[in-house]
């Protein structure tokens, strides 16, 4: 049944989107920076993996190098740009614009090197189809997306609540001023946060294009949807962001039963407006 297929596709997309949302939320709740360039990191990951595969490297190596590249890029953006701007006491607006500049740079370097056309991955094993519950067909890639995303979610939850660094990060997030005058070293924490978030976002950055192909300017739409999930789920709530990402992906997918696909962004946006009008703090707003 079409609806069931769409439902399952929604879970797949939602899981990937959930990781984008979690990684973005990680940065935003800690550094308070609306890191638009995150969409660029997401994009870069896919292309790096594709390049390595095209040069004959095995898939795991390609993936790991992509993660490393994204991590490095994230750390670079933090130390080279955001930290500098923070030292100069730049306003929020200035940081936003700078982040937008980084996004433009990343996207267009990719477009210049790889052209703006859609690139497909050449992974035959990824396209193998499994038939699940009642005629629902899922590719290996899609199953892999769900598994990896759930694993990443669990990892982030464990990290945030179970490790010392994770707790430090949460401490910095909840009270940056206090963190500054204790031993927490917020600036170093910010670098870790950016590095981890960038590594995380590489996961959907590679998995999603396996299905849909690579395109240099395709990062902003998932990022936008992810930020909506983050806000709706409550900034600071990892689970909230993840769950809402799936919900939004479901709504987008199910809406395909009624309206043409190119309008799906309208659904996302409509949801956001409703939330903004009635519950700006989200459903799972973290206790402050």
């Amino acid at each position, binding site marked *: 049944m079409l609806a069931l297929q769409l439902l399952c596709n929604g879970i797949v997309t939602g899981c990937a989107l959930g990781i984008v949302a979690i990684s973005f939320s990680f940065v935003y709740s800690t550094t308070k920076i609306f890191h638009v360039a995150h969409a660029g990191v997401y994009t870069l990951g896919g292309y790096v993996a594709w390049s390595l595969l095209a040069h004959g490297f095995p898939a795991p190596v390609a993936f790991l190098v992509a993660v490393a590249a994204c991590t490095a890029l994230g750390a670079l953006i933090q130390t080279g740009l955001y930290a500098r701007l923070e030292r100069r006491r*730049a306003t929020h607006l200035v940081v936003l614009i700078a982040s937008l500049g980084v996004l433009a*740079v990343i996207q267009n370097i990719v477009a210049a090197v790889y052209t703006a056309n859609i690139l497909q991955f050449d992974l035959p094993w990824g396209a193998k189809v499994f038939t699940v519950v009642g005629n629902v067909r899922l590719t290996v890639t899609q199953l892999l997306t769900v598994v990896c995303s759930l694993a990443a979610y669990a990892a982030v939850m464990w990290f945030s609540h179970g490790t010392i660094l994770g707790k430090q990060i949460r401490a910095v997030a909840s009270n940056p001023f206090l963190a500054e005058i204790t031993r927490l070293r917020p600036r170093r924490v910010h670098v870790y946060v950016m590095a981890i978030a960038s590594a995380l976002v590489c996961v959907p950055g590679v998995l999603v294009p396996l299905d849909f192909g690579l395109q240099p300017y395709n990062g902003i739409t998932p990022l936008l949807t992810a930020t909506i999930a983050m806000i709706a789920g409550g900034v600071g709530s990892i689970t909230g962001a993840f769950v809402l990402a799936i919900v939004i992906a479901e709504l987008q997918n199910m809406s395909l039963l009624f309206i043409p696909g190119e*309008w799906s962004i309208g659904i996302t946006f409509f949801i956001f407006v409703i939330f903004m009008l009635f519950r*700006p703090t989200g459903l799972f707003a973290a206790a402050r």
Partner: protein
Amino acid sequence: MDFWLSYLTLASIYVLLGLSTNLLVGIAGIFSVSQAAVFGVGAYIVAFFLMNDVMSFLPALAIAAVCCVALNIVLTLPALRVAGDYFVVTSFGIQLLATAVFTNWTGGTGGANGLPGIPPADLFGKALEDTSSETILCVGGMVLGCLVFWLVMRAPFGRLLRAIREDELAVAASGKSVLRAKVSAAALAGAFAGSAGGLYATFLSFIDPSSFDLDSSILLLTMVVVGGARTLAGSIIGPFLLLALPQILTLVEIPTTIAAAARQLIYGVLLIVFMLFRPQGLAGEKL
């Protein structure tokens, strides 16, 4: 000669957009990547009216401006009532949504192929068919826009906006509505952007969604950042400089396949460099 006239005409139109973006981003402090969308709405409205012979240019332009004023009010009012970053998301969403509408609503906007054959502007019955009269119209529009901007900034409204940039809380404590001021600035920005759209449509006689997408919004931001925020001079310098850039680039032999990406890349670099080292732009005040 025609080339210089075209450059001047286009620059004049973009000065109006620069004033619009400056009002919104520089003066009201609202991060906006959706200015191109509003620009597009203005362009498509005027194009529609002129192509279907519904009315002449000036009334069409007026309606486009009013629609864009209303659009900006509707977009900024709910977002501003909540918190700063929500508007960032809203702005991106509006821009992407607008591009989706422009590209897919083939009936209204001609879809991805755009609208060719837009009649030229006409003033009091006479069609302006040659480049020089169109140039005069657009430059006239620019001068008018600059005058309006100057009047507004010189008035208590301008002082109120400057105070808001410094300390919103203190302004609220003085009994003034910060929200109303910001929304008014956004409304005025809409009028500028809508008018620019109408002039653009009649000058080029062809519009398509690619002129009104996120990349265009980024260009508008770059103009304000480079020219300088919050000042009249900045709103003029930015567009003139940035529109000269593609011409300068043709001197460097960049293959056409990556020309567009190269331009956008430079805009991105300019944004980063100016935010890091010269946030006030060439002739502006610190953002």
